[in-house]
């Protein structure tokens, strides 16, 4: 394979050192940033629960592939032959602490084998990836630069799943398959909703562990998705705030499927590793409520910017983070007191308020509008949570779900072990607009929204304009027959030459609409595009 090295060309390279959004990679060490911002390269990846009505034994790898393949039959994805996933730069077992994992728990081949085993994968024209991971269909958003766009593409993923299920149901030989944007089957299994944040490589990993952990343990009070059942197998029938809290067992680690850590150490930047680290956050719940997703990623990105700038003094360290994660989740009254390392005891709301105060002081009055909106909404929900969480039943998932459950419980005089209530818990997450209870609340105008359906539908096919996802998405849309493979940091073309041409994209902020938008209008064929970008 011939590799076109584009260092210095339009798509950028290591010597093309523009300041990364939201990071301090280009700033000299120890320099305080001019302005703090929520903006940085980020994305989410959600594994959906999958179920065939009446057939609990259906093979989920087969049904997940049917879902992905059904969506891949959309006209814009099927006309030029499907592009494969390019694994060349992927090193999923590299650890952020500086060593490569050599234990026996993971087989690298497993991570690379999906093409061979026939597990489906499709790269979408919006730059997203829809594929089968483990035993679930998964949607990874394209890289975006701000929390509002995360919500946009995360919701586009949800609509993609709904359409995929609808298409599958109309495919001869495939029965109805239902999809749920949740994180547990309440029988011991959990599946992930991961977030990714590109960070400065200069930030010591120990700082992330020390200062991000108290934030992650307590943020569930506004981004938990709610769950009936305590314990991994839900053996105790009671409502808790988070879907995922009971599945986290250690503070720091590389694993994602067992002994899950609050801070995951996977170090696979999909970008220039000298400059960037991709922080892989595995501890969140999948959210339906737009404001829950907005706050989940918005607050995280601000806190990470503060960590990059050395804003925290360590006084918020929690004595027993894993135990407190569960204790906070198990107390929807939000009265639980967390014990800090310094012996103080604070509620999750108080701990979050303390982080918010520092963020306000750090971001200052001249915060950009994206940052301001996150800070304002953060303050709003913490105040409301302190008064009465049910005030947020029209804005966040767990209060919305708990409010529904409580009303239903009162009317029918049910206890928390009732199958009806568990069915409501589960069906809150159904992606079908006519069946999902979250979607029924939206249809009644009962949930505050950030977006319109039209915007979300557009985002199913249109890439974000200000990251390399634009280049990836446009290549797939414009030259479907010539793109034979792609990944987060590459697009591979077959333009009829002796060998394939691989365009690396190691700078996530290059390949934007501003950089290359007019090239797609100008170049009828992929070969013309390649001639131009490789000549510079």
């Amino acid at each position: 394979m011939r590799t076109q090295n584009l260092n210095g060309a339009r798509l950028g390279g290591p010597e093309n050192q523009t300041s990364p959004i939201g990071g301090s990679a280009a700033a000299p060490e120890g320099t305080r940033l001019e302005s703090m911002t929520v903006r940085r390269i980020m994305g989410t990846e959600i594994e959906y629960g999958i179920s065939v009505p009446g057939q609990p034994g259906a093979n989920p790898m087969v049904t997940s592939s049917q879902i992905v393949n059904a969506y891949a039959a959309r006209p814009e994805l099927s006309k030029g032959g499907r592009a494969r996933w390019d694994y060349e730069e992927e090193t999923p077992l590299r650890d952020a602490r500086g060593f490569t994992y050599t234990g026996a728990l993971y087989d690298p081949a497993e991570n690379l084998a999906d093409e061979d085993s026939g597990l489906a994968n499709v790269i979408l024209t919006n730059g997203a990836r829809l594929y089968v991971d483990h035993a679930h269909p998964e949607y990874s958003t394209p890289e975006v630069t701000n929390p509002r766009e995360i919500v946009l593409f995360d919701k586009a993923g949800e609509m993609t799943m709904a359409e995929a299920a609808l298409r599958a149901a109309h495919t001869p030989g495939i029965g109805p398959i239902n999809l749920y944007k949740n994180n547990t089957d309440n029988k011991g299994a959990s599946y992930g909703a991961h977030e990714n944040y590109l960070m400065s490589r200069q930030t010591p990993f120990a700082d992330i562990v020390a200062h991000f952990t108290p934030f992650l343990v307590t943020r569930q009070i506004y981004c938990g998705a709610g769950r009936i059942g305590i314990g991994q197998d839900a053996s105790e029938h009671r409502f808790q705030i988070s879907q995922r809290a009971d599945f986290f067992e250690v503070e720091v680690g590389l694993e994602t499927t067992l002994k899950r850590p609050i801070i995951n150490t996977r170090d696979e930047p999909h970008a220039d590793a000298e400059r960037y680290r991709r922080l892989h956050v595995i501890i969140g719940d999948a959210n339906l409520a737009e404001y829950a997703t907005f706050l989940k990623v918005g607050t995280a990105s601000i806190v990470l910017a503060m960590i990059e700038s050395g804003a925290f003094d360590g006084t918020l360290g929690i004595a027993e983070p894993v135990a407190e994660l569960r204790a906070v989740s198990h107390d929807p009254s939000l009265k639980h007191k967390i014990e800090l390392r310094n012996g103080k005891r604070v509620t999750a709301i108080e701990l979050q308020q303390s982080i918010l105060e520092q963020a306000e002081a750090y971001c200052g009055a001249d915060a950009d509008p994206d940052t301001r909106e996150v800070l304002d909404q953060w303050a709003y929900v913490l105040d409301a949570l302190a008064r009465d969480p049910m005030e947020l039943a029209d804005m966040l998932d767990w209060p919305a779900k708990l409010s529904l459950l409580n009303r239903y419980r009162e009317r029918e005089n049910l206890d928390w072990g009732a199958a009806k209530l568990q069915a409501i818990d589960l069906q809150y997450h159904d992606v079908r607009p006519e069946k999902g209870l979250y979607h029924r609340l939206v249809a009644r105008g009962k949930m505050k929204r950030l977006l319109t359906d039209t915007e979300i539908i557009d985002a199913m096919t249109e890439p974000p304009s200000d990251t390399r996802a634009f280049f990836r998405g446009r290549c797939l849309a414009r030259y479907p027959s010539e793109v034979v493979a792609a990944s987060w940091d590459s697009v591979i073309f077959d333009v009829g030459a002796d060998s394939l041409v691989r365009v690396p994209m190691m700078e996530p902020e290059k390949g934007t609409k501003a950089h290359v938008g007019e090239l797609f209008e100008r170049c009828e064929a992929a070969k013309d595009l390649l001639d131009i970008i490789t000549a510079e």
Partner: protein
Amino acid sequence: MAAKDSGGQSQSQRSRQEADAEATEAAVDPEIAERHEAITEEVDDLLDEIDEVLETNSEEFVRSFVQKGGQ
């Protein structure tokens, strides 16, 4: 309501609060009552809709939702 759990308060405070609460209840604004009724109707309506869209056999539905582990 609040007065019942406030064990530390003096008797006089407690009875004044109770009296206030009764007074408030007695003088229910018809507009508020109407709104309250509308909300109750709406909630009933929503719960009825849940009954309509909920998978028919809840027990079977919940039991057969079995997932393989994930990340």
